[in-house]
């Protein structure tokens, strides 16, 4: 074991910033990171053992206790559930003869839930030993179980189990007519760095991750920093449930993403870039590495790019299952091999980012757009969209529609148009921008997708009239409680309290005061949390409570108050100890008048 671990440490140059990569490699071999391994790593990396333990315990895909030789996770996104995931999960567990969340006694297999894996257009989805599984159904699960019981290595499983489709149904400025590798860089060098930056400014491009900060301004701020060691980071930690457009962009347009990063690097003066790829997209890793290599061989990356005397390279760092790492400062912490805890701001990443050096962090789609703008100019982009939201937006459409997949629209498109194009009928409502966004009713379908109306990072989940609003809200609320990093009190305790309070109501134990308490708690978490996660975690409840108060009200009991726990069930231990079970040993929950 020691020899293997040493090989892994050497491979990653014993660099503490590569701790996640080291832990991933060790876990892939031993299915967990043992106490003995932690001691070896602490010595070799010169880190306190507690830092290694705390990193392992932070990320969902890392474990201190063994998982199965076959570790299976099913995506627990609302879209997977709508495609029958829950039944498949129970079936899977019963056929494997294990409990969900546990390791089977023979150590061969473990099964658990995981947050949205970004396969919402081809679910129910899962992950086996890190690799994405799509289109799960009973026959496929039967086949998987057979392969597991026969100890067939995952590498030898049928390729169709791992097939991931792009499903692009509508292409616009960004997805049509890809440019040839190098063309954006050539145009950029010919024009001059400052002129390209001016074009990005003219284009009006704003960050595509959702926050919408002006890209040219971010790059300009970073370039103006006195510190000259600077970094470019591409945020490919697409974790918002219902979002999968970055997966498609990286699968089919990666050259243009890397080229956008390189253009940015030459403008801000960075020599090192990172692609922070969410762990769920491990299946893209080798392919992306090959593209980077191809670019190095074509002088589009590395030393003296296109003979312009510019040096820049890109390293891919994988995430390990933490939604919070999509937040840019948490992402930077994670890039540094630490727990993904959002930093206090200011300072902002443009002045103190990776290793506290000036850093530009942009979304995958933003870099793709930058490449296109470098070729076609800013006006080409600015001519499309609305006055405050220029250009196009790539949407990930899932849920109840005939053609779930990728759609690119000019900003300002109405929700109704989108619903029509993807074949959605009998619609109840749409979750725009994912759980952290807004749930809108079909009555609002004339609203526009744009920063000035419905801002979105791209998630667009459609629900038809057969869906239960409270089931949707419950799934989202549980998601946030699971993904809260725990740094600040309002989010750490608040998201779990939201989960308890919502469950109390949906399970029929609520009374009128509970809705008031729920709403008060929502505001508390929203107004006091440290970062975007906590500030938006109550959005599913708030936006549905506003639109469908009756769905909540019909769950309430008529009594004025009911405790949040089952009084009679709580007496079970006492009854057992007293060895009695007569009528006097039972209590009714609340005396009804």
């Amino acid at each position: 074991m020691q020899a293997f671990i040493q090989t892994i440490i050497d491979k990653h140059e014993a660099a503490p910033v590569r701790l996640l990569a080291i832990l991933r490699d060790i876990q892939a071999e031993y299915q967990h990171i043992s106490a003995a391994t932690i001691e070896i790593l602490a010595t070799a990396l010169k880190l306190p053992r507690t830092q290694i333990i705390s990193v392992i315990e932070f990320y969902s895909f890392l474990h201190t206790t063994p998982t199965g030789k076959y570790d299976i996770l099913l995506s627990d996104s609302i879209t997977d559930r709508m495609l029958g995931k829950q039944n498949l999960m129970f079936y899977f567990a019963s056929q494997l003869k294990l409990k969900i969340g546990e390791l089977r006694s023979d150590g061969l297999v473990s099964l658990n839930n995981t947050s949205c894996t970004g396969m919402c257009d081809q679910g129910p989805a899962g992950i086996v030993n890190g690799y994405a599984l799509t289109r799960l159904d009973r026959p496929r699960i039967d086949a998987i179980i057979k392969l597991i019981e026969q100890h067939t290595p995952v590498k030898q499983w049928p390729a169709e189990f791992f097939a991931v489709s792009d499903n692009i149904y509508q292409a616009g400025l960004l997805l049509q007519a890809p440019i040839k590798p190098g063309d954006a860089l050539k145009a950029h060098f010919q024009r001059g760095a400052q002129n390209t930056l001016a074009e990005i400014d003219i284009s009006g491009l704003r960050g595509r991750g959702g926050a919408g900060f002006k890209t040219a301004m971010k790059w300009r701020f970073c370039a103006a920093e006195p510190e000259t060691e600077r970094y470019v980071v591409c945020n490919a930690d697409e974790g918002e449930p219902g979002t999968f457009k970055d997966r498609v962009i990286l699968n089919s347009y990666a050259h243009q993403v890397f080229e956008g990063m390189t253009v940015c690097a030459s403008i801000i003066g960075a020599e090192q870039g990172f692609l922070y790829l969410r762990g769920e997209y491990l299946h893209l890793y080798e392919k992306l590495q090959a593209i980077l290599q191809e670019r190095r061989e074509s002088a589009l990356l590395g030393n003296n790019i296109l003979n312009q005397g510019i040096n820049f390279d890109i390293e891919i760092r994988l995430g390990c299952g933490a939604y919070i790492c999509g937040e840019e400062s948490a992402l930077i912490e994670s890039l540094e091999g630490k727990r993904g805890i959002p930093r206090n701001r200011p300072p902002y990443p443009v002045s103190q980012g990776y290793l506290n050096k000036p850093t530009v962090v942009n979304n995958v789609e933003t870099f793709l757009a930058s490449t296109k703008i470098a070729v076609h100019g800013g006006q080409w982009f600015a001519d499309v969209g609305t006055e405050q939201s220029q250009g196009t937006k790539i949407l990930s459409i899932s849920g109840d529609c005939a053609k779930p997949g990728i759609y690119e629209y000019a900003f300002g498109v109405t929700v109704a148009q989108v619903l029509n194009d993807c074949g959605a009928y009998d619609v109840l409502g749409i979750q725009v921008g994912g759980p952290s966004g807004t749930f809108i009713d079909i009555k609002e379908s004339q609203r526009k997708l744009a920063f000035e109306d419905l801002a979105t990072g791209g998630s667009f989940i459609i629900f038809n009239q057969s869906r239960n609003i409270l089931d949707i809200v419950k799934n989202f609320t549980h998601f946030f409680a699971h993904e809260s990093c725990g740094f600040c009190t309002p989010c750490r305790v608040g998201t779990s309290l939201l989960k308890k309070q919502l469950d109390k109501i949906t399970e029929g134990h609520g009374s009128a005061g509970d809705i008031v308490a729920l709403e008060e708690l929502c505001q508390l978490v929203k107004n006091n949390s440290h970062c975007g996660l906590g500030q938006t975690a109550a959005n599913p409840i708030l936006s549905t409570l506003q639109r469908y108060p009756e769905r909540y009200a019909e769950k309430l009991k008529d009594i004025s108050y009911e405790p949040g726990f089952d009084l009679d069930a709580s007496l079970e231990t006492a009854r057992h100890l007293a060895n009695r079970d007569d009528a006097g040993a039972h209590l009714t929950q609340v005396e009804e008048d």
Partner: protein
Amino acid sequence: MHKTITIDGQEVPFEAGQTIMDAAISADIYIPHLCHNPDYQPHGSCKLCTVKVNGRNCSACTFPAMEGQDIQNHSADLEQDRLRITQMLFVEGNHFCPSCEKTGNCQLQAVAYYLKMHDNHFPHFFANREMDASHPEILIDHNRCIFCNLCVRASQEKDNKNVFAISGRGINKRLIINSKSGQLKDSDIDINDCAAHICPTGAILIKGTGYQVPIGQRIYDQQKIDEVSLAEESKDHG
């Protein structure tokens, strides 16, 4: 000439590099806080010191003071949120003040008194937390840990050690000890370390010193936390 900010209508001078909390303490203005201690790097996690800066919520302990800031510290809304955040800390762990040795000297309890907290409001988590009594001189009761990170910072910044760390995620967050066994007795903590004495609650206690001061004669039995805090903190930094 000093630059100034305004806190609840009062002009407060500040120096470059000061946070809103620093400026407030220098001007004898109390902003409730638990994870903050002016002797250590600001952390910004408890969120009790949330103030409104030009209408926007910010943590006073980490947010830089800047010319022209109009800051609200005492308002019914802010006090209500601080009360609720304190209640969150109470239900998250297991805090039984009457049976805790720290009662009367506990900052969590004192802040609760200051904010006029009469109940826990939220349902209890009844978290299953353990005690570590392994060390001959120092006791850890995880039930009372509020994750202020002060012991972590004290050990790193003042003791030049790394005895404590925060592990886990979300509501499963936990304080861990840097030793092979995970127990305090096997760590390199010393009774004279700052980390052993910094805990604002009763999570880290010194053995053999219990109840030397009778209940009723302790710090916050006699003075409110705003007075104590300002006297202590502006003494060092005023």
